[in-house]
């Protein structure tokens, strides 16, 4: 339970910091970069290393590569859809989330 509370607090702080950086930087196209900052990775990697060791954390990092590739495809799809069809951004971002699942799990399956 203590570990989860630490994860929540550290994750909240790290994500908030990156979100604030995203608000501060201009132009907006660059600020958007912080939307894909390694916030959750940074928040958890220390705890993971302490609890499970370096090899376990490295294995998580390998999968994170697939997650990041899926994130790239998801973000491109969001950008295209919002620019082309001007749908509501929250609805678009949530509707396209399954794309991330499909790509990331397909990559794990194809590159075990």
């Amino acid at each position, binding site marked *: 339970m203590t570990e989860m509370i630490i994860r929540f607090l550290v*994750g909240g702080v790290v994500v908030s910091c990156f979100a604030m950086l995203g608000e501060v930087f201009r132009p*907006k196209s660059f600020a958007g970069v912080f939307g894909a900052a390694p916030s959750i*990775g940074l928040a958890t990697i220390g705890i993971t290393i302490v609890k499970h060791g370096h090899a376990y954390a490295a294995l998580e990092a390998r999968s994170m590569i697939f997650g990041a590739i899926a994130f790239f495809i998801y973000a491109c799809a969001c950008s295209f859809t919002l620019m082309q069809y001007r749908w509501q951004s929250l609805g678009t971002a949530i509707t396209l989330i399954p794309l991330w699942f499909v790509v990331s799990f397909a990559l794990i399956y194809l590159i075990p």
Partner: protein
Amino acid sequence: MISTQWASLKDIKLHEYLLRFLFGGLCTVGAGLIAQRFGPVVGGLFLAFPAIFPAGASLLEAHEKRKMAKAGLDGTNQGREAASVDAAGASIGSLGLVAFSFILWRGLPIHNASLVVGTASVVWLLVSVAIWYVRKSRWLRGRSVEK
């Protein structure tokens, strides 16, 4: 050119800060629980899950709408365009995230953890900035050709 505008932090409302903190905390806990239940291979995927992105895009759209409403205009289209530009930026950041993860994967088993995490973070930023500049210069060239 990349610049900073610290005054824009004042435009963010308290509940927007709290929302991001809550989302960030929950996503980090969620990633930990998934790793516990399904192991590091599946758990690692969720370290790059775009959980914060929908909330961020929605807040950005709301900001743009609010700004346009102050001028007596309907900012719906501008808001969605801003969210689209933000998503394009996130796509660049996600390529930096690939580099970040690669360095952790290869570096953690053989080097000091603090050094590897620090290097990976710097590389994330450098890769993202470099790709952003390349993309921007290509976009500018495209615009000048159009003219």
